[in-house]
């Protein structure tokens, strides 16, 4: 056998999505028809259902090979097929076509804390979760102390996890997962949780795994983490491979193509089953610091739906969320009928962000969707012209926001002596 760990050939996955037809006759009519002739009604209904079925290829003809010991990132926008690919690789769902050869024991980590039971104690959950992730009883017992130490929850080991804080919960869950020792490790965006300190610890552990000669497949929107961990990258777009190879150039291509520079939303994107995002524009782009930035979002309602919440999410290139524009106060919830367009126009009154590139996503909550859509577009902030004449510090020293401020500088007698003088005066009064 050669040194490949994963070989994927012509992999495709089809989902069938049913579309609801508008029922013009009304419920009573339908009920009438059903009672009068149930068999005809059933036949009719099945035919209608079949006619409105649609095929959707989540993956189409994907082929690649991963060498043993490589750490490979899978990147791409929401809906590009990353999760489907991971699900097929971890055998949760079957491919429609194609073939995969895996050389080595596979462990996949698509979610932190899968199968944790609220009523069970930390100790019990370690055993349960370990078994679910594919560890044997002996293996878990051997690593038990290590897991507990890593999770830092010694004191609460015999407390039901429902009494844990969310931080403790995540730490325990990751600790179990981190002690898996498969030859191939598949990880999905699990590092997007926990406090910064613990995230660093997790990344460290991942690095250890990746550099320890094991094969790692890593899906993430966190580009710095991807750059730190992975030497190779596969860039998926709309179910096909857009680019594959060394991580650096592929990540560059991805960042460039997700529209960081042009602020133009490229293709229509399905938001749940009811909505399609047809446009997301920011102008002017680049915008100068301190100036207003206009945004325009357009959805098409595929069927009657309700849009409950919508937020514009702004991220730095390091994947830190720097701002979120919550549009609930601007006329939400919004009801739309089939075929209608939902137009959102707005303006950020003053762009306070420090100069640099920013990425933009949306959080949408509606009848059929509750999700973050990241990396939809981006914009550039340019430094404002500086009237004072001094040279500003480089952007990396200045944080993320340029807070408007005023200050007054004076020279005076020291604070302490004036305070003492005041106290003396008060005492004197008495």
């Amino acid at each position, binding site marked *: 056998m050669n040194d490949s760990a994963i070989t994927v050939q012509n992999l495709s996955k089809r989902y069938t999505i049913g579309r609801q037809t508008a029922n013009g006759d009304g419920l009573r009519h339908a009920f009438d028809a059903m009672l009068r002739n149930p068999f005809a009604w059933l036949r009719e209904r099945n035919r209608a259902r079949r006619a409105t079925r649609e095929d959707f290829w989540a993956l189409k003809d994907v082929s690649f090979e991963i060498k043993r010991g490589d750490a490979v990132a899978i990147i791409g926008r929401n809906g590009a097929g990353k999760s489907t690919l991971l699900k097929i690789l971890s055998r949760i769902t079957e491919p429609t076509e194609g073939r995969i*050869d895996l050389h080595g024991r596979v462990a996949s980590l698509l979610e932190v804390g899968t199968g944790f039971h609220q009523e069970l104690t930390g100790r019990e959950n370690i055993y349960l979760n370990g078994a679910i992730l594919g560890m044997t009883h002996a293996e878990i017992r051997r690593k038990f102390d290590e897991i507990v130490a890593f999770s830092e929850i010694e004191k609460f080991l015999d407390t039901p996890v429902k009494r844990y804080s969310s931080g403790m919960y995540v730490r325990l869950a990751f600790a179990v997962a981190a002690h898996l020792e498969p*030859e191939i490790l598949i990880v999905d965006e699990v590092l997007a949780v926990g406090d910064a300190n613990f995230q660093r610890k997790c990344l460290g552990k991942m690095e250890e795994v990746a550099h320890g000669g094991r094969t790692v497949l890593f899906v993430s929107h966190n580009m710095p983490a991807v750059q730190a961990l992975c030497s190779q990258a596969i860039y998926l777009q709309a179910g096909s491979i857009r680019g594959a190879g060394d991580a650096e150039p592929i990540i560059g291509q991805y960042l460039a193509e997700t529209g960081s520079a042009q602020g133009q939303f490229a293709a229509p994107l399905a938001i749940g089953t009811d909505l399609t995002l047809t446009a997301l524009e920011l102008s002017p782009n680049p915008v100068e610091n301190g100036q207003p930035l206009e945004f325009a979002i357009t959805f098409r309602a595929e069927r009657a739906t309700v849009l409950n919440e919508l937020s514009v999410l702004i991220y730095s290139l390091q994947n830190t969320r720097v701002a979120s524009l919550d549009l609930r106060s601007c006329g939400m919830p919004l009801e739309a009928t089939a075929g209608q367009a939902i137009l959102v126009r707005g303006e950020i009154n003053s762009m306070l962000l420090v100069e640099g590139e920013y990425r933009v996503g949306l959080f949408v909550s509606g009848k059929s969707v509750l999700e973050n859509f990241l990396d939809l577009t981006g914009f550039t902030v340019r430094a404002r012209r500086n009237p004072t004449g001094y040279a500003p510090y480089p952007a990396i020293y200045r944080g993320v926001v340029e807070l408007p401020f005023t200050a007054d500088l004076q020279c005076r007698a020291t604070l302490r002596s004036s305070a003492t003088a005041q106290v003396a005066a008060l005492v004197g009064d008495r």
Partner: protein
Amino acid sequence: MHHLTIEAGRTERQYWRDVWRYRELFCFLAWRDLLVRYKQTVVGVAWSLIRPFLTMLVLTLVFGKFGKMPSGGVPYPILVFCGMLPWQFFSTALAESGSSLVTNSNLISKVYFPRLVVPASSVITSFVDFLISGLFLVAVMVWYQFTPPANITWLPFFVLLSFIASFGIGLWIAALMVKYRDFRFIVPFVVQFGLYLSPVGFLSSVVPDEWRLLYSLNPMVGVIDGFRWCILGGEHQLYLPGLACSILSIIALLATGILYFRKTERTFADII
């Protein structure tokens, strides 16, 4: 080195090997359900005694006292309890394993393991309840100073039969419920009617002879009759054609259950 090929519709060969490999997970899931089952209840495990006890009281009153059904020369409570025991096991196993996939949907959509493990472990959980209620039967028999006949050595066989029957139907319902949540409403009905359609509160010999074979298509008829034959003996003779009929229907249930489950299993993660 471990090697695995994933291809559309080619996982069958791997499957049964995996079922064996994941036997520990199977134990863990059963253990989890047992641990969780009576958490935050006041009387705890006593529930598995209270439930059959109350049902026994009601059935004895309704069929024995008011209905004046024949008891075949044994105290009516013992007669009822011999039917209750396998029936309660069957109905809880059916309900629990039927809903097991849906209640574990977070597992199904996030990790791989042979899905068969989930309904199977729920049957085990109900089996533990069955054993506890069995102790209660012993207590009732001591109370009435009733000595079981030698037939009792056949009891494990009928326990196994009830096991297979519950598992077979459980598989069907579990697989169907993934797609059609209607079964969430259907199952309580089946359990409710089944109590009266099966010879739990009465003897199956009250069924007219010409209908008896047809009646035995109900898998629980053979099982309950078998339990009575083992524990009560005496006048409770086995109706062999009926038993054969029940065994056949149990085997058919299990075989079709496994086939249907396997057929739909590959899409569970997509539609759950």
